[in-house]
C-alpha cells in the first residue's frame, strides 16, 4: 500500500511506547510469565497489578465467572504490598516493557505512601491510579466516583510523582466531570474506564457466584461504554492523553477507540484468552494505518466526533 507507516511507536504524556497497545492491570502476571507467551518487545507497555501499601491476600475463590461477552471477577487486589512488588516483580516487568505501576489505597495517606515508595524508582515509567475501591475515610463505596475526592487523591499522587500519572476513572453515566477534576488535579493522562461494579449469582446454590460476592465486569461487553467515555472526554479535554480500557479485543476495536479519541489502548480480558492478542492488535493497527495511508497512530486519534455535550432537540439534529 504505502511505505509511510514505518512504526507505530507513540509518546503518551511523555512516555514512549513501542506500540499503542498496553496490557491492562491485573492481566500481566508477576513479570515471569509473559515472556514465554508473547513477544514482549512488540507490546507497548505493561500495567502492573494494583499494589497497595500492605500485602493483600485477596478475595476468596472463585474469583472469575463468565457473563455474556464478559467476565465478572474480583481478586480483592491480591498483591504482595508495594515494597515486595518493587523488589520482586518490578525488575522483571520493567526489563520487558515500560511499566505503568497501578496503585490503590483506601485513604489519602495510603496513596501518598505508595507514591513515596515508587518515587524515583528505576523501572517505573508511569503511575496508574486505581480509584474504584472503597474510601475508608469517607466511607464511600468508590473512592474515585466523587470529583472532590478524586481531586485530592490524584492531586496528591501527581504532586509527588516524578513520572506521569494516569487516573483510571471508575466510569459512570457522565464521566466528564471526573475527567476534568483529574486533569485539574494534575493527571498527565486518563485511563477510561475501570471495570464497572457487577454481580454474578449462582442461582442453584442461591448465593453470589464469586467468593467475594461482588465483582467487576470486564470484556467485550464493555466496548460501547468505553468508546462513549473516550469520545466524551476527548471532546471535553481534546489535549489530554487518553488510554482506552474495557472491551478491546481486536485491532478493529483498538482503531475504534483511537478514532473516538484514545492515544493508546489497554487489553485485559483478551490477553487472558489469547496472550498474543496485544501483538496481533498492534499489527492490525499497522495494517489499518497503511490502509488509510496514515503516517502515525496519532492521525487516527479523535477522527470520529460525536455531537454536542448536552444533546439538542432532535428537530435541530435531524
Amino acid at each position, binding site marked *: 500500500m504505502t511505505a509511510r507507516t514505518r512504526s507505530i511507536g507513540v509518546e503518551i504524556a511523555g512516555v514512549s511506547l513501542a506500540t499503542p497497545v498496553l496490557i491492562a492491570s*491485573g*492481566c*500481566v*502476571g*508477576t513479570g*515471569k*510469565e*509473559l515472556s*514465554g*507467551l508473547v513477544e514482549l518487545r512488540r507490546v507497548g507497555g505493561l500495567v502492573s*497489578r494494583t499494589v497497595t501499601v500492605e500485602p493483600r*491476600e*485477596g*478475595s*476468596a*475463590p*472463585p*474469583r*472469575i*465467572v*463468565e457473563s*455474556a*461477552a*464478559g*467476565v465478572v*471477577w474480583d*481478586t480483592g487486589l*491480591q498483591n504482595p504490598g508495594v515494597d515486595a512488588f518493587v523488589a520482586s516483580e518490578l525488575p522483571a516487568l520493567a526489563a520487558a516493557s515500560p511499566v505503568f505501576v497501578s496503585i490503590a489505597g483506601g485513604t489519602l495517606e495510603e496513596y501518598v505512601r505508595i507514591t513515596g515508595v515508587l518515587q524515583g524508582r528505576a523501572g517505573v515509567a508511569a503511575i496508574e491510579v486505581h480509584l474504584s475501591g472503597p474510601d475508608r475515610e469517607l466511607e464511600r463505596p468508590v473512592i474515585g466516583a466523587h470529583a472532590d475526592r478524586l481531586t485530592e487523591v490524584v492531586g496528591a499522587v501527581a504532586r509527588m510523582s516524578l513520572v506521569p500519572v494516569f487516573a483510571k476513572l471508575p466510569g459512570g453515566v457522565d464521566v466528564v466531570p471526573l475527567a476534568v477534576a483529574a486533569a485539574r488535579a494534575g493527571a498527565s493522562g486518563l485511563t477510561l474506564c475501570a471495570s464497572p461494579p457487577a454481580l454474578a449469582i*449462582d442461582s*442453584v*446454590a442461591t*448465593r453470589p457466584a464469586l*467468593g467475594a460476592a461482588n465483582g467487576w465486569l470486564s*470484556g*467485550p461487553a464493555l466496548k460501547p461504554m468505553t468508546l462513549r467515555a473516550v469520545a466524551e472526554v476527548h471532546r471535553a479535554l481534546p489535549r489530554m492523553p487518553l488510554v482506552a480500557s474495557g472491551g478491546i479485543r481486536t485491532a478493529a476495536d483498538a482503531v475504534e477507540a483511537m478514532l473516538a479519541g484514545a492515544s493508546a489502548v489497554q487489553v485485559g*480480558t483478551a*490477553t*487472558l*484468552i*489469547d*496472550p*498474543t492478542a496485544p501483538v496481533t492488535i498492534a499489527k492490525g493497527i499497522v495494517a489499518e494505518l497503511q490502509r488509510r495511508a496514515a503516517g502515525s497512530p496519532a492521525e487516527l486519534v479523535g477522527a470520529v466526533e460525536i455531537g454536542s455535550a448536552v444533546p439538542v432537540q432532535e428537530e435541530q439534529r435531524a
Partner: protein
Amino acid sequence: MKRVRAEILSTRRLGSYQSLTLVAPEIAERAKPGQFVAVAMPDDRDFLLRRHLTIHQSSRRGGWAGTLEFVVDPGAGPGTAWLSDMRAHGFLDVIGPLGTPFSYPKRLTNCLLIGEGRSVAGLYFLAQELVARGKRVDMVIGGSTLDAVFKPIEAKRLSQLVTVVTDDGTLGETGTVIEAIEPALERAPIEVVYAAGKVPLLSAVAEICRSRKLPAQVAVEERMGCGYGLCGTCAVPVASKDGTTWGHVRACVDGPVFNPARVVWDRWRAAGAASPVGEDAQ
C-alpha cells in the same frame, strides 16, 4: 508451554464422557501427568474464556506419538458441549502443557490413586508413568453411576487392586469414593497417595493422609481466567511451610498439583468451592 493449532484426530463417547485426541506433538512431547491444556472457544460466542482440561494421555512414542487426549463432561456447560460436538479433523487452539505436574516417589513403591467422575481421566496418565518406573499402583475410582465411571477396564489394566464405587451400585460397590479409601489403605501397604477430584474428596484425602502420615499429592480445580499465571483468579489458600500464616497461590502455575497438607481446605470450602464442577455438580 506451546500454543498450537491442533487437529482433532478422533473423538469418541466413553460412557457419559467425550474423549478427544489431538495431534499436538509440541505439547505431547512435554506433557506430564497432572498437567493440563487451555483450549480456546470460538470467537463469536458469548462465552469467552479458554477451557482448562487435564491431559488424559500424551504419547511421545509408538503409533500415537505426538497425540494428546483429554476428556470432557459434555453436560457441564457450553464450553464442554461445544468441544463434545467438534468433529474429527476440526482444529482447536490449544496452549499447553500447563501447570506443575505430579512428582514421582523416588524410594517409595506402593501408590494409591484416588479419583472420581471425569477427574479419573488424569490418573491413568499418572498410573502409566508410575508403572513404567516400577511402582505398584492401586486405584479407587468412582462416579455417580455406571456411565460416569471413566474407563474402569483401564484401571484394571494398569493397577493391582482396584476399587470401583458408584452412588447407585450400578458398577462395583455402592457408596462414595471417600468411604472406599480407608478399606483400600487397609488392603495394601500403601506408601504414597495421589488424588484428583473436587474439594470434598480432596479434603477427605488430606485428612486421611494426615492422620496416617502418608505423603500425598492432589490435583485441584479452580476457576481460571487464563491458565498461565497472568490474572491471579485461580486462587487456592495454602499454608506457609511453618503453618503459621497462609496465602492464596495460583492453581495454574503453583498447582494444580499440591501437597494436600498445605492446602487450607476449610477456608477454600467456605469460599464456595465445594461443588465446582462435574457430572453431579448440577
